[in-house]
């Protein structure tokens, strides 16, 4: 099995994907579609992406990057 490949459970509800570091990430299939509610998170930005455990990386209009740790945004000092 190669990094990036996933196994899907028999009931198709769960997948386990092999990461590059050798760990598996297990997630509920279509979990993102289950909740139709948005929760407002303090802060603002221009661009957003999300890591494998569901925490966001945000970039504001000044180019500064922040990572959400579940309760607050922490500044990430980028390359340039």
């Amino acid at each position, binding site marked *: 099995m190669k990094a990036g490949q*996933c196994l899907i459970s028999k009931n198709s509800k769960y997948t386990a994907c092999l990461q590059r570091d050798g760990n598996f990430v297990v997630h509920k299939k279509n979990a993102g579609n289950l909740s139709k509610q948005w929760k407002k998170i303090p802060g603002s930005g221009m661009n957003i992406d999300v890591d494998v455990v569901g925490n966001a990386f945000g970039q504001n209009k000044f180019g500064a990057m922040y990572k959400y740790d579940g309760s607050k945004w922490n500044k990430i000092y980028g390359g340039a």
Partner: protein
Amino acid sequence: MWHIGKGKEGGGFGIYRMLPGSGKWVKIPGSALRLACGADGNAWVVNKQNNIYQYTGKGWKRIPGKANDIGVGHDGTVWVIGNSIENGGFSIFRRDAAKNSWEKISGSGVRISVGPDGNAWIANKATKIFSYDGAKWNQETGGANDIGCGSDGSIWVIGT
């Protein structure tokens, strides 16, 4: 972890990568405007010329096609916001890796991200949010200027 920096270059801005555990950003040759990272840890980017590149671990491989944004699912599925103007922004394509080609998906948008199941979420130029269920787009509540999908199924948006 990858990010697009602030230093202007020919294809947009500089590209940086932090290897797990290193704590240091390393500049990767090349430049881009939009970036998405696959489960294998390698990035896909779109540059200012709307060209698409995949990082192979050694360098950038040019992928045929043009795009304005790109998303990669945890299952490796790649989607792009294309370069043809349509009502909601630009055309949408999903990559057929086996055929090394793009399949046009109906609909249009300006920002895209891909969920763990390989289906895309988009925001269109009217900031409306849609999720693809494998056959059609379903409008979601709320509005977004950008959207991100986590491998755990979390969806985050930059709101309106």
